[in-house]
Structures are given as C-alpha cells and as structure tokens.
C-alpha cells in the first residue's frame, strides 16, 4: 500500500468520524430540545383551542402529576373556558404503548382527572368537564421510541359542543 492510499484512507476515516459526531450532537440537541426529563415539551402534535391556548398537557412515564408547563397550559385553558361559558369539554387521557392495556386505561383516566382537578381549582365547574380515557389505544405518534412515547402520554382538552 503506497503512502497516498494510506493518507486517503485516513482522510476518509476522519471524514466519516466527523459526520458521525455531527449526527450525534444533532440528535442529542433535538431530543433535549423537546424533552425535559421524559416529559414532552415540543409543539409537534399540539393543537390550539384558541389563539395561544394549547389543547394538551404531557406527563412523565407512569406519572399523573402536572408539570409547571402543564399547569401554565391549563391556566390558559381555564381562562378561555371562563370567557366562553357555554363551552363544555372532554378531557381525553392517554398513555404510551409501554404498559399493559388495562393499567393504561386506569392511568389515562387518572391523567385526565388531574387536568380536570386543576381546571376546577381555576373556577371551571365540573359539569362542564367530562373525562374519557383511551389508555394506549389512540397514540398520536406511531413511533417506538422515547420521543414518540412522550408525545403520547397526554391529556387533551377537546371541545364537546
């Protein structure tokens, strides 16, 4: 093997490793940008009930407690509901696919209810809120990876009328 060939090989290996590190940093950035702990903080699947009023909140694995961001979203929803007093909503609770079906139904119900309880503390009557758990039956992201699962662990506020 002559020298130029060896140099060429070294060059190729260097190039390849540069590309690889570039990829690695990029994916790392992307995931830290959309996950806090394992709670989804991105806006990919989020829809809006009104301008500036996101329709959903996200949860950590096996958790039903609301994060600071979730509480902020729910306060916006409560304000919107107070302004539109004729609107009733269904809170749809969901789980990711990494759990048994029956337990996930219960978990979805508990998640939707923690959102409901929070809306109620901000003055929304329980008559205007119903709860529906889908467990893991209706994912928004069909991926089998932590980011997809984080988007699926959610409670979505849906207009019912």
């Amino acid at each position, binding site marked *: 093997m002559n020298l130029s060939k060896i140099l060429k090989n070294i060059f190729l290996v260097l190039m390849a490793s540069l590309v690889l590190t570039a990829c690695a940093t990029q994916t790392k950035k992307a995931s830290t940008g959309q996950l806090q702990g394992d709670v989804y903080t991105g806006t990919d699947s989020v829809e809006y009930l009104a301008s500036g009023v996101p329709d959903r909140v996200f949860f950590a694995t096996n958790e*039903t407690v609301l994060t600071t961001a979730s509480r902020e979203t729910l306060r916006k929803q409560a304000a919107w509901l107070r302004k539109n007093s004729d609107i009733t909503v269904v809170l749809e609770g969901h789980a990711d696919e990494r759990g*048994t079906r029956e*337990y996930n*139904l219960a978990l979805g*119900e508990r998640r939707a209810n923690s959102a409901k309880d929070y809306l109620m503390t901000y003055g929304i009557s329980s008559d205007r809120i119903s709860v529906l*758990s889908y467990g893991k039956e209706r*994912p928004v992201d*069909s991926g089998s990876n932590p980011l997809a699962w984080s988007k699926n662990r959610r409670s979505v506020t849906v207009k019912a009328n």
Partner: protein
Amino acid sequence: MLFRYLLLLLLLLPVKTFALIEVDITRGNLNPLPIAISPLSIDDNSKKGFKKKVKIEDLGVEISTVVENNLRQSGLFNPLNKDAFLQKADIANLKPRFEDWNLIKAQALVTGKVSLVDEKLRVEFRLWDVLAGKEMMALAFTTVPSNWRRVGHIITDKVYERLTGEKGYFDTRIIYVAEEGPKTKRIKKLAIMDQDGFNNKFLTLGNELVLTPRFSPTNQMVTYLSYFRNLPRVYLLDIETGMQEVVGDFPGMTFAPRFSPDGKKIIMSFAQDGNSDIYTMDLENRIVERITNHPSIDTSPSYSPDGKYIAFNSDRSKYQQIYVMKNNGKDVKRISFGNGLYGTPVWSPRGDLIAFTKLHKGKFYIGVMRTDGSGERLLTENFYQEAPSWSPNGRVLIFYRETKTNSKGEGFSAKLWSIDLTGYNEKMVETETDASDPSWSSLLSN
C-alpha cells in the same frame, strides 16, 4: 348456532391395558412421541354423500389431518409422514399389522372409519399401542356433517388425554380482538375462531373500539369493554344469540372484566375521579359489590379457580405490582417482588400458578409464579407482549405481541402467540388480521 347440534357419544369401549408408551409432559417438546395418524377410512357412498353435503373430497383424510395438526402443534407429539404408511386405512382400523407400524418407528397409532348414516356423520376411531400390540381406546361419535372439524378436535382431546394423563384443549375456541388500520387509528373488532385458527368469525363491525373480551368458564357468554357512544363500559355478549347488554349502571368507565369461575359474577374495575377500584356484579340479582377501596389504581382482577381468592394489579406501592386478596377484599398481600413492574395476573385453571406480564429494563416478559409469589419463571422475552390467557387444562398460554416500529413509525403489527408452560414450543397463532387480547374458552364438549 354451532352448539345447537350436540355431539352424541354412541359407544364407549374402554379397554384396560397397561400402556408401554408414555409422553413426558414435564420437559416440553424435547422428545415428541412418534405417532401415526392413519387416514380414517371411508366407503364410496359416504364419500359421495359428504362431497355433496360439505363439499369435501375425502372427509376421512381431512379429519385425520385435523388430529395430526393438533398433535403436532402441541409440541408433545411427532405425527409421522403418511407416505411411509404401509397398511391401508380400512384394514388398519380392523387389525393393525403392528410390525409395519413398528418399522416406521410409530409408538402409537390412530385409525378410524367415517360413514354417512341417516344424513349424519358417524366417526369411529381407535388408538393403538404399537409396542404392546394392543388397542388402548375405541370411541364413536355421531353429529351433523358440518361439525366435522370438531370431531377431529374431540378425537385429539381423547388421544391427548389417554397418552399424557392430562385433559386436552383442542375442542376449544379463542375469542380475541381483530385489528386493522394505522396504529394511530386502529379499527378493532371482536372475533372468534377455533383453537387451530379455523372457522374465524367477526362478532362486531368495528364501529366502536372494543377491548379485552373474556369467555365465561361455564357457557357461551363473553364479557368485554366497548366504547359504544364513547362511553367505555363493560358489556356482556351471548355469542349464540348475539344479544348484548351493558353490565351495571356505573357513572364512569368500567373495564378489565372477567367472569367468576362459576360464571355467575363479573369482576371488573370502575374508574371515578382518577381512582380505579375493583367491583363485582352478580349476573342474576344485579347486585354490585365493592371489593377494593384504595386511592391507588386497582385493576386486572382474576379469581382463583375455587373462587375464594382474587389476584389483581395495583400501584399502591407506587408502581404496578401483583396482589392477592380474599374474595371479599380482605387480607391484601403483595406477591410480586422481583425487579421491574408486574401486570395482568391470571390464575391458572389448575390453581397452583399465576401467569403475568412483566416489564423490566425496556423488555416485556410473560411468566408464571406460584400463588404466594415464589418460584417466578419467565417464559418469553420480547419488545412488547402481554395479556396471557390459559388453555383450559392449564398447560399452554396464549398472549399477544406487538412489533417495534421503524424510525418512520412504520411496521407495526400485533399477533397472537402461544407457549407451553415449560417455556418450550413458542408459536405464532395464525389469524386473518392482526390480533390482540386473546381469551381461551373451556372445553366445548364434556
């Protein structure tokens, strides 16, 4: 429909002989027993008659194929290739030439005869011990011709029971959820099929989400969860009449239903205000009873076969674990203490084991443990699998498994799988569509 025609047991000739052959059922399929299933003989007139009635060329061959496939699937038997058989079916049924069957290394032999008698299907069969040169069993059945596959299953059950000493599980059906469509908008229907995948039938149209069907251990009723009118509730379905009704009058979601062993009660979870507890409803007097009262999630209840205890899933210790309590909700004891999360406890029909799903380090396992939680044994590991259901003899578990999707979220599928209690003989159960939530029926005959 299927059960309108009862099978008539005509003659029973128990022959008491000491069998030399013995199937080792403790080790699984390491050494399956070589068995010859001779085609059942059929006379020309009957052949013509059945061809007209059930559109089958040779019913004798077909019934023996049902038996052969069943025995092979069990993993305990090795049905020998029919091409090697030297003796003709009709003569073998009268008096087998044991030297011939010995030559091809058959240790047991099944022979028989099929005939059309008064518009009915009459099947007789014999089980022979080739080494001892003796008849072990002879039985005959009469039924409507359309029931011919069931005859094959019943013969298998008799052969299996005679050779293993355990009841069979072949004349049984599986109720499950048939799935289709993208993962985010899955369409689900209740479906039922014979244990071997034949006679598949859809029981709902797919207009509403349905989950977790479970057979009654005593009759043709099924309990399941339906999202009819977006109200997830437990329903009761009579699969003979198609009649269905909602179970109880609960102001919220009811789910995770199962029958009590006597078929008289349904046990399930009821979720309200973020808390799920376990309730029963008596199907005769409609009385609802609360069994657990705890701020944690209590779900997936399953009775012991004597009805005295209930295994269930609870996160009262923070994460999902398996608990056992008395049927009145007293004396709650946690029984799962291994690493990871535990769900879907199901009590074995034999009473000595509880099957479960376990999640540990990103993998899902189907396993069994004794009812006090000792002797945990994991049978199979995969990306996702859950919801084991026992065969009626407590020998085989059926469950469902889902695949991991690729980076684009493609490649999702859900299939039924079965595995022997020993951890051997893991097999995919063929279904027309994707499938989940299987539940095994009791034996249809006897």
